[in-house]
């Protein structure tokens, strides 16, 4: 394989791996901060020690996850220069700014205050200590904001001018207020809350079944986690819905590709399943519900949606001959995997909350047993979501401005990129095993109860 193909694989592997950890960092930082807030402000003497131990318990899971996210995040930042130097040259005037701002506003904040939070329990007043975890949560979420400002430009460039053979920033405010940012950021933030809620209920369910001493505390976090997860899921659905409607304007090729809509239609149907024929640019077979796709986009059962084949012709007129169609099959099924997994999570969260709230959960130990095994659904949804976002902009690295094929570093050989790809992947695998082992062991051996030492 060539340096280009391998660089794409490497970036995809690193991004997906990195995003195993990012959602939990975003959501669990907030959850941990909420637990510590409970510890600091609660007037109920009974709750105070339990909240503190729960803070440390989920805080430790947060720390293990955070370390994995940070180290892969550094790879991401270096990757643009290492493998995509021509992209960095072409886009640096615009793309570098949010990355530098991410480091200045977010990385310093989260890493510095996390250090204080970890080791400062008896060196700071409780209120000041509480402030540090909130600063960590703010830093993490600010970091997501800046990197999605950068990503949104790649999906939907705004506020630029093509000059001196590169894209130059013409309007910083436009870059930051790109409507695409609103959709991507809110979707990622709520996905983080939903994923973290799922982690919390999975851990709590296991502890309720296997740790008699800690049972009471984790019955509470089971409820809290389910509520947290539902908030996240409603947010994900809402932001996803609005963002999809916005994509009709901003990114029609991605939109029609994820629905495998080859021909322009009004009203457009929603295909539940389809056998996609990329060669003949049509679906050999599909089960479609009439009008539903238009309804999703226009809130009424009519409205034109441009088909892939028409969009291809429009792209050829605008950008010259070439293939402007992304991986329709991959996008179609990724989108369904994402939405399906999200819907399934809604079901899990709803059932858990209902049973926990009514106190019925003890009668259904099978539900508690099942929850931890269902956790991968969140990771499927997150990964599939990124495939839709990033696969959907191909063949462009910046839609309409630069193609992925023109972005790769020209000095790299296939062998070099193969070496690094294999190297990173192996290290990722080994570390995932070690981190999971450490996390499982911690969950198993740590008790959370009044009077016990945590």
């Amino acid at each position, binding site marked *: 394989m060539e340096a280009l193909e391998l660089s794409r694989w490497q970036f995809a592997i690193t991004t997906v791996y990195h995003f195993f950890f990012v959602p939990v960092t975003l959501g669990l930082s907030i959850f941990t901060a909420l637990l510590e807030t409970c510890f600091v402000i609660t007037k109920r003497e009974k709750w105070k020690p339990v909240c503190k131990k729960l803070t440390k318990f989920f805080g430790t899971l947060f720390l293990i996850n955070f*370390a994995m996210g*940070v*180290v892969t995040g*550094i*790879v991401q*930042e*270096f990757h*643009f*220069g*290492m*493998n995509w*130097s*021509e992209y*960095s*040259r072409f*886009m*640096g005037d*615009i*793309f*570098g*700014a949010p*990355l*530098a*701002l991410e*480091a*200045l*506003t977010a*990385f*310093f*904040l989260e*890493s*510095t*205050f*996390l250090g*204080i939070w*970890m*080791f*400062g329990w*008896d*060196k*700071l007043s409780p209120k000041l200590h509480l402030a540090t975890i909130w600063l960590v949560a703010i830093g993490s979420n600010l970091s997501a904001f800046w990197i999605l400002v950068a990503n949104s430009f790649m999906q939907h460039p705004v506020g630029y001018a093509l000059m001196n053979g590169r894209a*130059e*920033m*013409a309007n*910083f405010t436009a870059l930051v207020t790109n409507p695409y940012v609103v959709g991507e950021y809110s979707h990622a933030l709520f996905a983080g809350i939903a994923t973290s809620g799922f982690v919390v209920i999975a851990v709590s369910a296991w502890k309720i079944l296997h740790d008699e001493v800690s049972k009471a505390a984790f019955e509470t976090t089971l409820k809290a986690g389910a509520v947290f997860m539902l908030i996240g899921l409603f947010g994900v659905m809402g932001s996803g819905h609005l963002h999809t409607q916005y994509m009709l304007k901003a990114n029609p090729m991605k939109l029609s590709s994820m629905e495998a809509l080859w021909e322009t239609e009004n009203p457009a149907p929603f295909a539940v399943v389809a056998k996609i024929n990329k060669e003949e640019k049509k679906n050999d077979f599909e089960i479609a519900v009439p009008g539903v796709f238009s309804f999703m986009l226009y809130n009424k059962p009519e409205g034109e949606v441009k088909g892939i084949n028409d969009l291809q012709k429009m792209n050829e007129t605008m950008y010259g001959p070439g293939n402007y169609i992304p991986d329709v099959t991959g996008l179609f099924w990724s989108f369904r995997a994402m939405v399906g997994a999200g819907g399934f999570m809604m079901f899990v969260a709803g059932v858990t909350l209902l049973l926990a709230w009514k106190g019925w959960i003890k009668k259904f130990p099978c539900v508690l047993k099942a929850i931890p095994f269902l956790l991968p659904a969140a990771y499927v949804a997150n990964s599939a979501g990124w495939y839709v976002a990033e696969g959907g902009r191909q063949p462009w690295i910046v839609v309409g401005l630069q193609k992925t094929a023109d972005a790769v*570093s*020209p*000095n*790299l*050989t296939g062998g*070099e990129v193969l*070496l*690094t790809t294999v*190297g*990173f992947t192996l*290290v990722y695998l080994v*570390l995932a095993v070690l*981190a999971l082992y*450490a996390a499982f*062991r911690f969950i198993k051996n740590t008790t959370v109860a009044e009077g016990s030492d945590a």
Partner: protein
Amino acid sequence: MELTVFWFILITVLFTGFFILEGFDYGVGTLLPFMSDDDSDRRMVLRTIAPVWDGNEVWMITAGGALFAAFPHVYATMFSAFYLALFLMLLALILRGVAFELRSRHESASWRKGFDCAIFFGSFLPAILWGVAVADLIGGLPINDKMIYEGNFFNLLTPHSVLGGIAFLLVFAYHGASFLTIRLKEQHLLDKAKSIANKVGVAAIVAFVLFGAATVTMTDFGESALATLILAVAAVAFVAGFSAMRKNCGKCSFIMSSAAIGLTTVAFFTALFPRLMVSSLNPAFSLTIFNAASTDYTLSIMTKAALLLVPIVLLYQGFTYYIFRKRVSREDLGEH
């Protein structure tokens, strides 16, 4: 002042901060296996840098981000030229970062020794690679008229750059040892740190002076009288620090090694100015603040952000060092 000049200075500041701060935690990580075989001892050694190493590493990430924002061509050429070197550095930093977190999660000796090994290599390797990189930046690399690197991994390794790697490693190790003398409490660890400092210090001075002399004579570094003067002052500061250590003043030694590292960084950037990467093919192909910079518009926005944020970062990072100013003792090991 021209914005490009301001950003050249800011990048110098970021690298200066990075080498001083991460320098001692690379040093501590490198010395970890030599400080003691006992687990509690090692935990105390690690505890001296545990609350701060991640914040220190952000100086490097910010320097990278600042290069990307202010001099995108430098970011593109440098990172793709140092491809395999950066790959090794990233592997090292990944292992190191995860090791700091996971080490304490299991009591078994093999688990802890394994992660100690990761911390050692994760500190040792980046220290060397930074030395190689700094030497290559001033020594020049085969960069063509399109700003594209024409060499491979082995072009990065010259006698000069290898000497640079050794010098950085030893200087950081010494810097780490003097940091330990002011941050540890247990007498036997303090004695160990001092004895290491006294041994490593001699080697570090030799490597520092040889590398400095090679840089001044083998590259065009010597053409800048100011840079040469600053480098000489740095060498004097380093030697003064070493003699202070012999007189049992760890604090004086640490201040001096910090000054030496800072001044060395400033000297290199002074010699480079206005270049950021030197082309060995043709001086006209070198990447400079003129041909590699972002637009004035981007630079002006980033300048406002930097002027606002860098002082705030310095304040709260200073606050961290203030909170953790007490020497690390056995009592600190109760938690975590």
